[in-house]
Every structure is written in structure tokens, then in C-alpha cells.
């Protein structure tokens, strides 16, 4: 058998080889973790734990909210509820320089309150906004980059599947608190992104020309279209904030309320519901398998003491708390370029959380920080899922590189938010501190 260090090196070599070969990420994590475990601990250990890890990690109670929030997002997507939001916001912000891109960003943020899925947000708003931006001769890199990153706002604004995955990995944490903690950073990021687009459009109007101006009464006329968002926001976030129900109860209620909203809009169709079910199977199935693969690898890191070694490595720099956090975020940014966000969270949270709490930060705060870091992972090649989604609905011939180049400046904007949150943790922790208990 190999030493722990040699086992980890072997595991990472297998991982990178498989990633480069284009194997599904869950297989890369699973096989490299299994090979690592066999080489360090022997066959018997693997035989004892592999099945257990697979079964126990996908039958957890907290995880139940994931398929439900994804189902809710897909129901709204397949019944075209996002279209109304977009029309409403365009009338308010369309006349500004970069107005279409700003409206898309704001709609993605609002859609985030109704959906836990970043791909549902990107796909919904992207499929409406891209043809409009093409018509207005927007710079393609700017328009596609905006939509790829704006879609990730759904990961930060509650409900969020990524925050649930974080909650599953941290014992005793209230997912509701992490949800509520994401509201202020989500709104700040929406503002920062809009400001960036406005400045770019002001400097180079050709990149993002201003749109049509509407009369005030026409703007007000479309405000009732925001009612569904208001209802879902009150039901999901309001319910958890007041301590009425848990994230899982909120997720079930949100599916029910979405169906009622769709019925009220007279858009309910069996075909669209089944389409939403199929999309949910696809996304949930993918998430579950990554959870299994990432947990096998995380178990290897645990038994070999790799987590302690990383902690010692970071501590030996003797950095102040904010320095430790920036170093952790830097490492997570690198990991996020080649790991899916679910794997990133499952593997990195057990390693970094003890360091973060020792530095004086709360686990709720770290949950939001990890989610913001995950937003970058969603938009950086080669595994940035949102880049693929936007490429899939972009005009024919658009390469992944074009979308990635467009998203790159927004990564800088996300880093501005991260620095703000490290400098002022109260931006995250204040709102959860005022919550009712449940």
C-alpha cells in the first residue's frame, strides 16, 4: 500500500487525466477517489464504504429541497413566466445606456427569487434577451457574458440549490439563515453588475446602445406582472425569515404555489409540466451523482489527513483573518475552474470551514462566500456550466471562448463583492441575525 501523500498524488493524477479525457466529472471524482482509497487503505476499506457513501449521501433529508426548487424553476421556465418579467423590466430600464443588458441582469436577480437553479435563470432570460440584444446590435461578447454571469445571481439570491448543498455539508446550520444572508450580497452584486454595464455603455455606446423610452403609465401598467415574484418571495424567503417553515417545507410549498400561479396565468399545459419534470430529472440526476463522487473523494481526504495538511499549510503563513480568507478564496477560484460547483463545495467546505470559524467568521457568512465563489466557477472555462447554457442558446457559430471572454470582466465585479464581504461581514450576517427561530 502507498503512503497517504503518494495516494493523494495518485488520486489527483487520475483525476486530471480523466478530466482532460472528457469523462463525466462525477466519474472523474469517483474513480480517482476509489483508486486513492484502495492504494492507501486497501480493498476492504473501499468495499465497506463505497456503497454506504453512495446511498447515505443521496438519501439525506436536507437534500430534498434541491429537486423541489429545481422543479419549481423549471415549471416557471417551461410555462414562460420569465417573459413577462423581462417585458416589465425592459420598459423601466431599456432607455438607459446598456439598458437591455441592465434589464436582463435585474430580471435574472428577480428570477432568482423564484428559482433555485442558475441554469433555469440563464436559459429563461437568455432565450428572451439574446434575440433582443442581437436586434439592437449589442456587442455579442458583452451580451452573452452578461447573461452567463447574471444567471448565477439565482445561486446567490434565495432559494438556492448551491446553498442547500453547502448546508448539507455543514452540520447544525440553518439553511434558512444562509438563504437570508444571501439577499443583501445578491442585491449588491446586481447593482455592481448594472453599474459596470452602464459605465461600459457610457464609454462605448456602440457596444450597448440605449433602447426605446416608454411613458410612465406604460411602465406602471406592467408592474402587476411582478406579483408572482412577490408571492413566491413572501412564501419562500418570508416564510423562512419569520421562522414559519424550513427550507424543505418552503421548497414543497413553492412548487404548489408555482402551479397555482401558472393556472392563474392560464398557461398550464401537460406537455410543459412534463418538460419541466424531464429537465428536473436531468439536473437532479447530475447533481446526485456529483455528490456521490465528491463524497468518495472527500472521504479519501479525510482518512489520509489531507484536510489537516491543507489547514497547516494555510496557517503557516500566519496571515490576518482577512488574509486567510482571501487565500482560501484564491484557492477556491483555482479549484472552481476545473471542478463543478457541487464538487467544489463538497470537497472544499470540510477543509476550509474550520479555518474560517477559527479566524472568527461565522458558518452562515462562509456559506454566502462559498456561494459567491461558486458563481465564478459557473462562469469560468472549461467547466463553467452557465457558459455552456448561454453558448447553447446563442446565435449559431458562437464559441465557448466568446462567452467566456464576455464573462471575464464580470469575474472582476464578483471579486469586488467578495472583497466587500470579507471587509464587512455584517453585509451577510445582519439580516439572518434578525430572523425568527425555527
Amino acid at each position, binding site marked *: 500500500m502507498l503512503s497517504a501523500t503518494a495516494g493523494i498524488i495518485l488520486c489527483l493524477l487520475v483525476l486530471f487525466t*480523466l*478530466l*482532460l*479525457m*472528457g*469523462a*463525466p*466529472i*462525477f*466519474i472523474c471524482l*469517483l*474513480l480517482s477517489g*476509489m483508486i486513492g482509497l484502495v492504494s492507501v487503505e486497501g480493498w476492504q476499506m473501499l*468495499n465497506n464504504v*463505497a*456503497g*454506504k457513501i*453512495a*446511498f447515505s449521501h*443521496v*438519501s*439525506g*433529508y436536507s437534500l*430534498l429541497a434541491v*429537486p*423541489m426548487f*429545481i*422543479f419549481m424553476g423549471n415549471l416557471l421556465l417551461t410555462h414562460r413566466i420569465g417573459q413577462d418579467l423581462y417585458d416589465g423590466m425592459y420598459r423601466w430600464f431599456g432607455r438607459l445606456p446598456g439598458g437591455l443588458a441592465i434589464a436582463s441582469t435585474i430580471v435574472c436577480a428577480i428570477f432568482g427569487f423564484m428559482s433555485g*437553479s*442558475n*441554469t433555469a435563470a440563464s436559459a429563461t432570460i437568455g432565450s428572451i434577451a439574446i434575440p433582443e440584444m442581437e436586434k439592437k446590435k449589442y456587442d455579442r461578447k458583452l451580451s452573452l457574458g452578461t447573461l452567463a454571469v447574471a444567471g448565477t445571481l439565482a445561486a446567490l439570491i434565495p432559494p438556492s*440549490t448551491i446553498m442547500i448543498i453547502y448546508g448539507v455539508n455543514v452540520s447544525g446550520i440553518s439553511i434558512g439563515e444562509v438563504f437570508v444572508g444571501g439577499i443583501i450580497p445578491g442585491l449588491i452584486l446586481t447593482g455592481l453588475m448594472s453599474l459596470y454595464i452602464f459605465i461600459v455603455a457610457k464609454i462605448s455606446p456602440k457596444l450597448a446602445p440605449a433602447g426605446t423610452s416608454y411613458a410612465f403609465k406604460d411602465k406602471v401598467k406592467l408592474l402587476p406582472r411582478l406579483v408572482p415574484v412577490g408571492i413566491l418571495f413572501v412564501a419562500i424567503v418570508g416564510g423562512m425569515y419569520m421562522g414559519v*417553515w424550513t427550507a424543505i*417545507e418552503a421548497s*414543497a*410549498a413553492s*412548487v*404548489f404555489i408555482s402551479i397555482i400561479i401558472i393556472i392563474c396565468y392560464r398557461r398550464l399545459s401537460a406537455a410543459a409540466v*412534463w418538460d419541466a*419534470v*424531464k429537465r*428536473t*430529472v*436531468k439536473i*437532479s*440526476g*447530475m447533481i*446526485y*451523482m456529483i455528490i456521490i463522487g465528491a463524497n468518495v473523494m472527500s472521504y479519501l481526504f479525510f482518512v489520509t489527513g489531507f484536510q489537516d495538511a491543507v489547514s497547516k499549510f494555510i496557517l503557516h503563513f500566519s496571515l490576518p483573518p482577512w488574509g486567510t480568507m482571501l487565500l482560501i478564496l484564491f484557492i477556491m477560484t483555482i479549484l472552481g475552474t*476545473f471542478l*463543478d460547483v*457541487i464538487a467544489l463545495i463538497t470537497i472544499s467546505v470540510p477543509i476550509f470551514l474550520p479555518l474560517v470559524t477559527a479566524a472568527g467568521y461565522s458558518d452562515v457568512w462562509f456559506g454566502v462566500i462559498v456561494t459567491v465563489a461558486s458563481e465564478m466557477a459557473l462562469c469560468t*472555462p*472549461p*467547466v463553467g*456550466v452557465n457558459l455552456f*447554457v448561454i*453558448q*447553447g442558446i446563442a446565435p449559431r457559430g458562437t464559441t*465557448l471562448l466568446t462567452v467566456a471572454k464576455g464573462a471575464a470582466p464580470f469575474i472582476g465585479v464578483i471579486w469586488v463583492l467578495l472583497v466587500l464581504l470579507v471587509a464587512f461581514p455584517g453585509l451577510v450576517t445582519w439580516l439572518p441575525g434578525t430572523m425568527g427561530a425555527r
Partner: protein
Amino acid sequence: MLRAIIAAINKTSSFFGLLSGILICVLACLLIYDVFMRFAINRPVDWTLDITQLLQAAIAFLAAAYVLKIDGHVNMSAVVSNLGPKWGRRLTITANAITGLTSAWMCWLSWSLFTKSLAISEKSFGIEIPLAPWKLLVSIGFGLMCLQGLSMALNLWLHPEEFTSDGREGH
């Protein structure tokens, strides 16, 4: 003959994907019922807790092969798409074969999870549902994924014209 086997495997994966979709609807109904009983009628039920958790595991394992079939699992396709059709196809065949073989390994490893659970008549904590049939789903799920992975490798080997190196969608 091989074409028929590949088609049969695809159909099986699709069938279990469909079953998984139905289970998602059942799961949603159960969770909504639970919330309704707790908050509207004020008579909380306890039996949904065990069932919903086990249903979730069933959804995860029964959907896995279907998700593989429709290319729903996230991967890093940058290298494959830049290699050109010949080497891209070879690498994809290898990746699919590795997916199949890894799943076969997991299918074998998780079999003991089922046999041990069966031997001790293991039951869930709440309403004491026998766990062995649910744990068998781990082996079934990985077994289906093994067949799907290997059939995709075989299909691409037999039909080079079906190779595409597109990016894939995730969550």
C-alpha cells in the same frame, strides 16, 4: 445484433428515466401533502419523512443512466472538442468505456450493502420500512449506468459519424 442491443439499453435507460420523473412528481405530492397537513390542518404526519428520503435515493439511482444517455452529466469537453474528429472520437469512446467500467465496479461494491441489509432485516428509523430493496437500487442504478456507458462507447466505435463534441448543460 449489436445495434439491437444498443437500442434495447437506450430504451431501458429511458424507461428508468421516465420512472424517475414519475417519482419526482410523487415526491412533490408527498412533500406538499406533508406541508398541507402540518400548516393547514395542524395534524403533522410522520410517515412521509422516511418515504420521501428513500424516494429521493430511488430518483437519484434510477435517473443516472438516463442522464448519461442524454449527455446530462457535466464534463470538461474543451480538450475533446479541440482535438479534431478522429482523436476526439477515440477519447470519447475511452471516456464512455471508463464510465461503464467504473459504474460496474460501483455496482459490485454496493452489492454487499444490499446483502448485509437483507441479512439483518434492516429497517428505516421512522415507520420501519425494509431498507434492503432500496439499497438494491444502488447496484441497479450503477448496473444500468455500466450498460449505458459501454453501449455508448460501442455505438461510437461502430458509428463514427455520430460523434459530436458539443458542450453540455448542467444545473
